[in-house]
């Protein structure tokens, strides 16, 4: 029963430790450092949620920034002070112009907006496979950018919305990161999660086992999109501005890098890679500016990714969770653990059943 007790305490302890860290950081660090930590947290949300789509189910999506954009714009329009709305967005419908929400409902509605978009898009696009899906989601990202640029009465077009209230702080980011990780963790260790992994490993076999392909795919797409939408809202209220070009192909690329580097399917891996990548980019940014060597951080990230793909294509953590996180779990759910694919080294669960 030791394992059981340790499990019950492990996550709450971790969460508490994180909360203490947040508290300490907030009382000792300056705004610059805090904003970097916030970006790190937002990237964790993005990477972990993209991991549900790309990693668990193997749906290679480049559309994550598009869902961020949906969530970000929805949240931004909702929280925008009425006075500024009248000035910047005079063409807004009256009922919308009168709204001024607080952050939480705005974030959730942004997330739901992104989820809705994911359902609409996923319904048709998810029939595609492999790199065709990637290209189609990239197309979706570009289409969405064009739409946002042209919906001037809501978005102010290419100028974007600026002067948003700075509502996001480290607490918000922290809580949402914890929620994201918790939900994704639960999903991964549920029957839905195992269905997703089964689809990734072998679609036909999964279908033969009675897993509803279309529904599982769209669930994983929509789940990823929800958190992307929330992250978009957090992002907008941290930067206090939002423009269509923020949600770029480069961003899609960076998110994919996080999933690949961390190991497709590994939540710990995605979170770890998100931290690493953000820190690398943030450390390089001052260097970039002082040397006027713009582009160097992207070059380094791209080369890093190429090296990982060459020498460690399964990513840092494969599709497993590392032992120090998962040992406690195995004692409790050992049976489930053995039967599911993520624990058996190569992640070839379904194949090995047959």
């Amino acid at each position, binding site marked *: 029963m030791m394992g059981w007790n340790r499990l019950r305490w492990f996550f709450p302890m971790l969460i508490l430790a994180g909360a203490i860290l947040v508290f300490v950081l907030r009382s000792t660090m300056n705004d610059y450092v805090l904003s970097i930590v916030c970006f790190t947290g937002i990237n964790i949300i993005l990477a972990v949620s993209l991991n549900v789509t790309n990693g668990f189910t193997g749906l290679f999506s480049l559309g994550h920034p598009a869902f961020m954009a949906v969530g970000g714009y929805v949240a931004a329009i909702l929280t925008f002070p009425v006075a500024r709305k009248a000035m910047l967005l005079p063409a807004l419908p009256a009922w919308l112009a009168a709204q001024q929400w607080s952050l939480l409902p705005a974030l959730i509605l942004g997330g739901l907006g992104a989820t809705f978009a994911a359902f609409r898009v996923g319904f048709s696009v998810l029939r*595609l496979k*492999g790199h065709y899906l990637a290209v*189609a989601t990239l*197309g979706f990202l570009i289409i969405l950018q064009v739409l946002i640029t042209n919906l001037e009465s809501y978005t102010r077009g290419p100028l974007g919305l600026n002067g948003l209230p700075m509502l996001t702080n480290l607490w918000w980011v922290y809580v949402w990161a914890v929620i994201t990780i918790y939900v994704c963790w639960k999903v991964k260790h549920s029957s839905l999660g195992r269905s997703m992994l089964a689809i990734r490993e072998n679609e036909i076999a999964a279908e033969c086992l009675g897993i509803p392909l279309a529904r599982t795919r769209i669930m994983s797409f929509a789940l990823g999109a929800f958190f992307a939408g929330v992250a978009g809202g957090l992002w907008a209220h941290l930067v206090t501005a939002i423009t269509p070009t923020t949600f770029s192909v480069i961003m899609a*690329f960076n998110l994919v890098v996080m999933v690949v580097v961390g190991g497709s399917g590994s939540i710990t891996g995605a979170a770890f890679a998100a931290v690493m990548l953000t820190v690398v980019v943030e450390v390089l940014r001052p260097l970039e500016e002082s040397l006027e060597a713009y*582009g160097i951080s992207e070059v380094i990230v*791209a080369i890093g990714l190429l090296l990982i793909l060459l020498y460690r294509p399964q990513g840092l953590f494969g599709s497993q969770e590392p032992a120090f996180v998962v040992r406690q779990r195995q004692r409790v759910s050992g049976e489930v653990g053995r039967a599911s694919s993520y624990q058996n080294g190569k992640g070839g669960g379904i194949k090995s059943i047959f």
Partner: protein
Amino acid sequence: MGGYIAQQLVNGLILGSMYALVAIGFTMIYGIIRLINFAHGDIVMIGAFVTLGLVISGKIPFPVIMILVFIAGALMGILIERAAFRPMRGAPQVTGFITSLAIAILLQNLGILLLTAQPRNFFCPDYLQTIFNFGPVSLRAIDFSIVVIAVVLMVFLVLLVRFTRLGMAMRATAENLNVARLMGININRTIMLAFAIGSGLAGVAGMMWGGKYGQIDPLLGFVPGLKAFVAAVIGGIGSIPGAMLGGYLLGFGEVLFVGLLPPIYSSYRDAFVFTTLILILLVLPTGLLGRKTEE
């Protein structure tokens, strides 16, 4: 109105010529190793900058520059294949795709790093700027050369692929790598050749792009590259005639979309292109001239 439409059609022909040249590379590379090479568009950018460098550096005649740009593009393609794609051969499809995306980002940002993101003016000799009027249609010499050169290059390519030993080897390799090896075909060399030809053509397209639009920057290749990919998909990816057809169709489609609809829609141009892509992928995944193959 008729004159306006004629002018638009000519513009479509010019744009389509460039798309077609780039799409050929996509389709050749995909045809042989089933890789969507996202870095292909950035070869266009490299071609444009190499042209600019050569134009600035001296009095090299334009036709020679074109040959040099083709060679530069080809070498770049070979380098990318050697350094990145060959070591990953046999990896899952998506890995190749991510690799190509990484190379695209790498090339763009190396461009920014070395050349700055500032757009530069592209020089063309005066004789290429001469304007000819054919009734209501006015054309610069450069526009005219773009179309002619593109068509000549494509005819060459078709002849090469259809009627030479090398072309036969390429077609065989595209259909079945292993059996091609059993025939004694060195597939590494064939793949390299596909990259070289495709990238060389993309380089020449970059030269045309610069000449046509007058300004170049390190990011210029990405979106046209994506659109050329769309063209390749429309024509049926893997089919060279398909890529040509797709390139021209997309060129016409895009120009007419902008030219014939009320101006308010013209900023939706890219959305139009990519919606077409998604529709084609969903409805007609083998494109117009593509072969039905199992994935």
